């Protein structure tokens, strides 16, 4: 039994100031293979990892105006992997010359009881979807190319249909607040993907 003696308090809390820097774009199904080919050349991992994830978006309505949103995601092709809970804050309004969308991000890995636990906390599921695609890495940059599928019967992830004829492309970096060189690196990488895909910062509020 090699359990080490613990003489100090456990490490609690994480960083409250982690920010997600994000650029998004899309490609039609016909152009997907060319994009994957270029990404294989530009990125670190030789063979891209593929994934099939089921994401549920939960809302908590309180006395305030806008509800609190949490995203719970789990893998359908690796069922043993922990669930992933994500909070995304409002996009930072600021420097217009900044190349990427910046928002506060809290990521929590959680056990498989997450769904029931969120319901017990008072959250209600707003919508869910399945995402199938590939993930690439280049240093701290993460590129995810995936297709969204609508779930036809609630809770049934076998029965899905594609939401559109295109694939969403997301370039993101998780970094502590204040590191603005990150968005320059992202812009430089995004340049290398043109004209296959144009990655831009898209303010979610403008789409509502």
């Amino acid at each position, binding site marked *: 039994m090699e359990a080490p003696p613990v003489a100090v308090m456990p490490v609690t809390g994480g960083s409250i100031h982690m920010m997600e820097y994000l650029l998004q774009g899309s490609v039609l199904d016909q152009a997907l293979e060319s994009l994957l080919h270029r990404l294989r050349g530009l990125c670190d991992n030789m063979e891209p990892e593929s994934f099939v994830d089921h994401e549920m978006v939960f809302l908590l309505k*309180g006395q305030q105006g806008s509800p609190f949103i949490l995203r719970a995601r789990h893998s359908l092709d690796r069922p043993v992997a922990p669930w992933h809970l994500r909070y995304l804050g409002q996009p930072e309004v600021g420097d217009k010359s900044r190349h990427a969308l910046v928002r506060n991000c809290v990521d*929590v890995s959680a056990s498989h009881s997450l769904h029931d636990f969120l319901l017990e906390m008072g959250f209600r599921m707003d919508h869910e979807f399945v995402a199938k695609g590939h993930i690439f890495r280049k240093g701290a940059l993460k590129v995810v190319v995936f297709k969204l599928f609508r779930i036809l019967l609630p809770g049934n992830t076998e029965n899905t249909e594609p939401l559109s004829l295109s694939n969403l492309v997301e370039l993101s970096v998780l970094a502590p607040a204040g590191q603005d060189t990150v968005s320059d690196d992202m812009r430089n990488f995004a340049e290398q993907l043109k004209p296959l895909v144009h990655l831009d910062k898209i303010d979610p509020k403008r789409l509502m």
Partner: protein
Amino acid sequence: MCLTLCVCVCEIVIVFRARSVSQVPVAEGKSVQQTVEMLNRKLEQLGAVKQGNFCVDCETYHAGAIGSPGQPPKFLYVMHNSEAPLSCFALFENGPCLVADPNFDVLMIKLKSYFQNAKSNKVESRGARYQYCDFLVKVGTATIASSARGITVEVEYCPCVTANDCWNLLMEFMQSFLPSHVPGVPSVFGVKTDGVYSPSDTMAQYLELFSKLRKQQAATGSGMR
């Protein structure tokens, strides 16, 4: 992974309240600290070796802004255990338990307008950690807002993960150093469907103990010393 743990947490032995003196073979006037030292000495006499310290803490969050009026308020408990330093446990009493990473504490800060942290209700149990052959024993002083309220004793039988298979062995071992006060089977053992023990069962047992302590504190008012 290596041996998963099977744990039993004894009931609290509260020393200087009249109603529980009968359960404890100590003289009148012994303090919490003296009883803890007595238990530690007994373990060392048995042959147990001290291996550092441990800490289990529990914070209470009050779900204020949600739920329909007329419903009883919901309490969310967020606990940490030094035995699992990279985990954070979130529980509802008699409800689901979530095991998450330490960023869950950061998320609770974001949720502060929905879940208020009742800081005065924080319960902690700290003490020494002893190893005796296949057993791990932790004797802790339970404190609410820095005042000692009782003693927790956690006994763990490391090789076994099936709770009901080793309850008798645990009980026999506990009798060797807790002469007159051996607890009944913890309620978490009864509800196990597959019988496999997990760290969240430990936290559920601690939560039960801490809730009992809080109720006792509320019933008897403040001063304990």
